[in-house]
């Protein structure tokens, strides 16, 4: 088990999938002759090759069905689910949408999405601290998103591990709320470097905080010069039109 976060697989649950497992448990021991000579075997293989292979399969699937898949990443409590429900309320009548929700426990977030009338599948990662490509693949077989739909994958709230695991998405979208701190992009550079868009959420709270928006954008561009930034408040709706325009632009891209 991981010393930092206790992350481990083995308690994975995907709604509708029996006995979901991200790894197997084979232990085929070979007991050869004693005193066998030692030798080297060259491997030269990326450890994430297996995940990347499944991610490539997901990506090919999305491309064939013209599905725009976005991977929403953030720390816990940044407002990802509220942003999603508000987005779906505005969008679902025009565009077919579907959601994969990742959390360690509970189906609360998927329930909130389903309340908007949009199909959602909850993936409970158990002790796992991120979604991987296999989990998304299995969830997609349950969800069966329509062709030309918009698929939102809400990752586990965590600014570290999800950066390393490609799910097959077109873009990672990092959601940062202004109650967090403008140096988050510097503290967690990998996530902001891997994201195409940073959404600064909860801007309605700016009058009550000492959050420096310009410094935050500067910090994000320091780790990723190309990152786009949209400021919005999912609660009041301010800036939501820019986010919806970005989504439309990506759908047509």
């Amino acid at each position, binding site marked *: 088990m991981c010393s930092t976060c206790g992350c481990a697989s083995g308690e994975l649950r995907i709604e509708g999938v029996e006995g979901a497992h991200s790894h197997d448990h084979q232990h085929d021991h070979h007991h050869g002759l004693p005193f066998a000579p030692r030798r080297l075997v060259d491997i030269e293989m*990326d450890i994430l090759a297996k995940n990347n292979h499944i991610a490539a399969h997901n990506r090919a699937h999305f491309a064939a069905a013209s599905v725009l898949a976005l991977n929403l990443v953030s720390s816990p409590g940044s407002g990802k689910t509220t942003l999603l429900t508000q987005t779906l309320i505005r969008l679902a009548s025009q565009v077919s949408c579907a959601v994969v929700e990742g959390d360690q426990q509970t189906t609360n977030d998927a329930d909130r999405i389903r309340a908007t009338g949009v199909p959602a599948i909850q993936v409970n990662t158990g002790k796992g601290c991120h979604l991987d490509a296999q989990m998304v693949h299995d969830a997609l077989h349950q969800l069966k998103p329509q062709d030309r739909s918009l698929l939102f994958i809400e990752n586990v709230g965590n600014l570290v591990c999800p950066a390393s695991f490609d799910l097959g998405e077109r873009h990672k979208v990092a959601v940062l709320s202004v109650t967090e701190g403008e140096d988050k992009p510097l503290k967690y550079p990998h996530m902001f470097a891997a994201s195409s868009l940073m959404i600064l959420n909860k801007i309605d709270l700016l009058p009550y905080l000492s959050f420096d928006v310009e410094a935050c954008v500067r910090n994000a561009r320091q780790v990723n010069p190309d990152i786009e930034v949209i400021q919005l408040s999912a609660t009041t709706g301010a800036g939501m039109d820019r986010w919806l325009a970005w989504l439309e632009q990506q759908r047509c891209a």
Partner: protein
Amino acid sequence: MHEITLCQYALETMERFARQNNARRITAVWIEVGAFSCVEAEALRFCFDVACRETLAQGCVLHLETPAAESWCHDCQQEITLLSPGVLLCPQCGGRNLRVVADDGMKIKRIEIE
């Protein structure tokens, strides 16, 4: 934080190659961790020993190679080493006109088997 998952992935590959080569056990492995990967070497060592228990790689020696954060500065026209992988600034001229050469992956180079 996700080092245990990476160890399990690594172990799957190591055991597959070991079986293909009719190994009795894996005695050592060489793993390269890219400067831009978010892998903590210490956490990896800790998880690795745990992940290897009751496998062909039990007691296996882990050799970690951690190359520096190499990049190319277009302004200085030379190779530079970033002070921190998170901050894309040339340590010589302070410019950001960089091309990152360092890897963000984690690679199994080779294993030693018997």
